[in-house]
């Protein structure tokens, strides 16, 4: 083995070690710092419990909203070509890279008391900012692209011959969607919904900007971690560990899903 090959191997090994260290070390540090004896007591604190409950409720509501509103968008992007499609795709993807605090400012300017849509809502007696509904909106905003991307990829993978077959069997476009396209793309749709739910669960910047930090109303787990960090490190650690466990579970579960029609076929084959 020449020294060049050896050097290349060493450099590769070093890069991999550093990369894993960057991601893994904080996780290890968190686990080592867990106040084992008092973990459950910490999590049972009424304020912490309220944050957990609020996080679960808002993130599930956000995921539901995303599936409801994002499915038609994913269908449109997957099956139709139209002018401005690329722009639409970019806009949908934007929340993935946009700093969530900027998203929060945008939401405030749109739906705030004096915002574009906020004024109209206010005249109807609806005030969104600093409410639980605002939390759901902020979470939906940042998590939407995770669902739309996965669902559109799933719809795109459904072979047109099945849609043609459905059409010649007198199925209307709606029936074809619900009875052929959606079932065949279901693994991708579920994966997308789960990913967007996990993203909503971890949302911080847009929430604190648009919805504020009111315990029991808008203070979700990530916000509680941030606040606890200044007053009670053990509580912050306990909540962080809980978030790590939840997120990791979601990611492992999504990977276990058979993705797309190819995965579906694989699942059938394995079942035999």
């Amino acid at each position, binding site marked *: 083995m020449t020294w060049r090959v050896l050097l290349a191997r060493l450099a590769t090994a070093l890069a991999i070690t550093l990369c894993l260290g960057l991601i893994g070390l904080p996780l290890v540090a968190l686990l080592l710092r867990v106040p084992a004896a008092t973990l459950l007591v910490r999590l049972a604190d009424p304020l912490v419990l309220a944050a957990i409950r609020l996080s679960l409720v808002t993130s599930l509501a956000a995921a539901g909203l995303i599936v409801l509103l994002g499915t038609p968008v994913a269908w449109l992007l997957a099956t139709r070509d139209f002018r401005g499609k690329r722009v639409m795709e970019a806009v949908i993807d934007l929340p993935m890279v946009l700093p969530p605090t900027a998203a929060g400012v945008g939401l405030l300017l749109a739906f705030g008391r004096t915002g574009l849509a906020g004024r109209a809502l206010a005249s109807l007696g609806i005030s969104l900012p600093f409410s639980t509904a605002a939390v759901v909106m902020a979470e939906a905003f940042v998590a939407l692209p995770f669902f739309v991307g996965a669902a559109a990829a799933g719809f795109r993978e459904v072979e047109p011959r099945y849609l043609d077959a459905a059409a010649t*069997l007198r199925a209307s476009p709606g029936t074809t969607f619900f009875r052929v396209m959606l*079932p065949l793309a279901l693994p991708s749709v579920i994966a997308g919904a789960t990913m967007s739910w996990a993203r909503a669960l971890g949302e911080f910047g847009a929430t604190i900007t648009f919805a504020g930090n009111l315990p029991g109303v808008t203070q979700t787990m990530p916000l509680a971690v941030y606040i606890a960090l200044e007053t009670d490190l053990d509580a912050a650690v306990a909540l962080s560990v809980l978030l790590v466990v939840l997120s990791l579970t979601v990611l492992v579960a999504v990977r276990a899903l058979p993705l797309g029609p190819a995965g579906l076929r694989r699942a059938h*084959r394995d079942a035999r």
Partner: protein
Amino acid sequence: MLTATLAKRIGGVALAATFEVEAGSTLVLVGESGAGKTTLLRCLAGLVSPDEGRIVLDGRVWFDGTAGVSLPAWRREVGYLAQDYALFPHLSVQANVGFGLRAQGLDRRSVRSRVDATLERVGLSDLASRRPDQLSGGQQQRAALARALVLEPRLLLLDEPLSALDLQTRRAVRGELRRTLAGLPCATVYVTHNPVEAIVFGARIAVLEAGRISQVGAPDELLRRPRSPYVAEFMGVNLFRGTVAERDASGLARVRTPFGSVVAVDPGEPGDVLVALNPREVTLHLAPPAGSAQNVFSGRIVELVAEPPFGERVRVALDSTPPLVAEVTRHAVESLGLREGLEVHAAFKATGLVPYR
């Protein structure tokens, strides 16, 4: 009854066809790959919109380019069997067959009884709960046919329904399919590129060449009077295209073709004619024959093919001018010692050649 005139430019092919199919009868559509067969079927099914034309089924207008009428596929009473069957992979055989009825909003019990009856008819009752990928090719074909027939279509479209099957199953499934189609009240269009299937299924055969129908007729008509080299090749007969040159008093005429001339029955008047020659009328000889045959051509054997494989008849292709195919018995091949590269003389009688226009 189906009446259709349609034009569609797609890829490199300009499809332009007019044809009719009576209710209860089958039109077999043949042609090389790329001739536009599948496009034509997809136009009829409503999966592709023709550029212009008119499709009328049992008095109902499905498509009219000038009037701007175009029913979507799901509003046409059509049955479409795709080449690969396209059974829904996520549904059982039963759910596949019941799909169309449920899409129409029929209640579960009626769906169940009609599905069961149809599965019984195609002999798939035992496999009703299987998934499509747990079926053999022949069973998939029957399931897909059942799925289309349970809706009692007015027009049934079959796109090379046997081509996905291996040879052994193909023969059995062909027989089944023929019996099933024979009893149907609907108009059927059957696409194939296999001559045997064309003859088995088609009371009428339409030949599609580069997007146009070059000939429509009964198999016998295509065999006796092929109108194009492709039709002749498809039916396995020799075809000469030429001009009546000399007519004599004995009722014979010399027809001049670009590759030499042949003596045929006098068509009664001069002009351009076609002459078809059944390969069975051609005899092969090692020395120039002395008999009564007016037409003798010599050439080298370029190919010997038994038809069917290991059958009693052998097709022998010569590089003579014009090129000829003869069909002789296996016994003749053996006694004459016929083999590729051998120089032989092919002879056929003028009385076997009846020119047509």
